């Protein structure tokens, strides 16, 4: 079956502006500027039912309507390319293979919402991709697609790249805005929401890179067309980033609702060494994992994954075979969230460290049976009790991996448990 591709099309050298133009590039921008009002652009995106690709699956068109129309304040767009969730590596493919479609989508978003400046926030580690996108932006400026009076219209906007400096939390939209403002990346309390009080207190919308990259095709072909691709409630394609124990890891653009096993077997060449699957994380390391039984039948879209208590997240699929040490995997995930907690909220700042240290003691064969319920309890005390979703992101994998793979943890707990582990011993396990 030939697969529908909206973003990562099989066109050689598509990253070059001339190639992009000769394949219909920037025609959506021209169409919008010459034939459509900003409201018509928003309505087309609403009709498409496009949902955010950053993990929350919020309706993009609806988000855009939250921006005030009549306001004396400047309005801003933040394009979220922080992409720091372990297992996610899709936005870099867009920057490398089709940067102009992302730029065109950003311009359409700016036109639709009356925005004069867009900041593309890219994680600091993506040095190469920052340069690639900057080259593409420079080319688009030269051709008059960005800047003053775009294509001879009244519409003007600028696009700037803002390089991060190594902080997972800056993928959270309000932390991202603080980072653009030159501050520590602390998430803000909401409300007020960004559309009311965003960058420098002005109305701001934050969209994921992949989300924006879909906009040009929606404007070109119509919202109706897009809404019929893949699963009707979560239409379009997703850039599945598959890693771990598969033969051909990589980014695969496939329609929503594609069965997970089709992705693993037909596109990724199956599990390495012909082994069985033990666990699959479906959407980046914060998403509740799937057991083999769940993995065998699941379809990859928002509703299907929610129905079994997980979520699509960033569609970063991490595959683990029968030999994977699930305790070590969870310990590594916990270490990550402990390292990345910004430290504002006590449940997350302290809880992530507790979870990591208890998991470490289990992994070292010094755990107790009661530790498993203790971990779930700590996770539940973090979940929902923090300013931002990092708390949930840290809690979910712990809670659900233990619930679904309890035997793996029990196997590492000694029959004769140490009566008590002195506190100083626990502290000696602290992450260095």
């Amino acid at each position, binding site marked *: 079956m030939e697969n529908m591709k909206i973003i990562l099309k099989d066109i050689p050298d598509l990253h070059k502006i001339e190639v992009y133009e000769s394949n219909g590039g920037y025609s959506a921008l021209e169409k919008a500027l010459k034939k459509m009002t900003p409201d018509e652009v928003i309505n087309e995106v609403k009709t498409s039912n496009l949902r955010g690709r950053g993990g929350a699956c919020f309706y993009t068109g609806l988000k855009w309507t939250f921006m005030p129309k009549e306001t004396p304040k400047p309005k801003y767009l933040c394009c979220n390319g922080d992409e720091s969730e372990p*297992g996610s590596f899709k936005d870099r493919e867009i920057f490398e293979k089709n940067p102009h479609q992302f730029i065109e989508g950003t311009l359409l978003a700016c036109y639709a919402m009356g925005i004069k400046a867009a900041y593309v926030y890219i*994680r600091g*580690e993506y040095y190469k991709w920052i340069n690639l996108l900057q080259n593409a932006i420079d080319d688009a400026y030269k051709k008059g697609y960005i800047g003053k009076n775009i294509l001879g219209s009244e519409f003007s906007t600028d696009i700037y790249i803002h*390089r991060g400096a*190594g902080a997972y939390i800056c993928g959270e939209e309000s932390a991202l805005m603080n*980072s653009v403002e*030159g*501050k520590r990346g602390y998430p803000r309390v909401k409300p007020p929401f960004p559309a009311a009080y965003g960058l420098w207190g002005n109305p701001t919308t934050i969209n994921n890179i992949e989300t924006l990259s879909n906009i040009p095709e929606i404007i070109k072909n119509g919202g109706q067309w897009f809404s019929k691709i893949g699963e009707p409630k979560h239409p379009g394609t997703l850039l599945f980033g598959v*890693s771990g124990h598969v033969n051909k*890891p990589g980014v695969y653009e496939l329609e929503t609702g594609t069965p997970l096993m089709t992705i693993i077997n037909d596109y990724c060449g199956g599990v390495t060494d012909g082994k069985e699957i033990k666990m699959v994380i479906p959407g980046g390391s914060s998403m509740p994992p799937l057991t083999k039984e769940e993995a065998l039948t699941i379809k990859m879209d928002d509703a299907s994954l929610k129905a079994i208590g997980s979520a699509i997240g960033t569609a970063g699929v991490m595959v683990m075979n029968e030999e994977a040490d699930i305790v070590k995997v969870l310990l590594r995930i916990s270490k990550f969230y402990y390292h990345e907690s910004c430290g504002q909220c006590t449940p997350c700042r302290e809880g992530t460290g507790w979870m990591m240290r208890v998991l470490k003691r289990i992994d070292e064969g010094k755990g107790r049976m009661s530790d498993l319920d203790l971990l779930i309890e700590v996770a539940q005390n973090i979940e929902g009790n923090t300013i931002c979703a990092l708390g949930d992101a840290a809690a979910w994998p712990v809670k659900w991996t233990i619930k679904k793979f309890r035997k793996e943890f029990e196997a590492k707990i000694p029959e004769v448990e140490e009566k008590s582990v002195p506190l100083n011993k626990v502290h000696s396990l602290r992450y260095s």
Partner: protein
Amino acid sequence: MEFFNEIELKKIDEIKSHYPESKAALLPVLWMVQEKYGWISEDSMKKVGDLLNIPYEHILGVVTFYTMYNKKPVGKIHLQICTNVSCMLRGGYELFKYVSDKLGIKNKEVTADGMFSVEEVECLGSCATAPMLQVNNQNFYENLSQEKVDKLIDSLHSEQKVNNT
């Protein structure tokens, strides 16, 4: 040597023009400091503060928040090895151990000659091409094996020697 030369100061003015407030230029300017001097010292922070009219305390807060800003000198060749889940499943920890043993240094240490340093880092978004490492916050080297990393270290080392002569 001047802290920033005329060309760099012009670049900073250009960066400032991207934002309504000059405070927002802080992250990009700190990147310029690190690229020029290799790390960000207390003195550098004070100079950036004078330049952008930001209190030193704010800059210290920012520099210590973001992991990529070096708070102390690193090796000329700073090797950043990912050990997060996707890399771990494909030998990230083995790579980290191999490189640190080969260089005889531990996490965040610098070799005696100041040439190499090694750091265990979180996911770099290179999950399909694991295991991997990044050098000096710039280039990615992916799908590594022991042989490949031996060659890489040798070629980076000779490049550095050429640059120094």
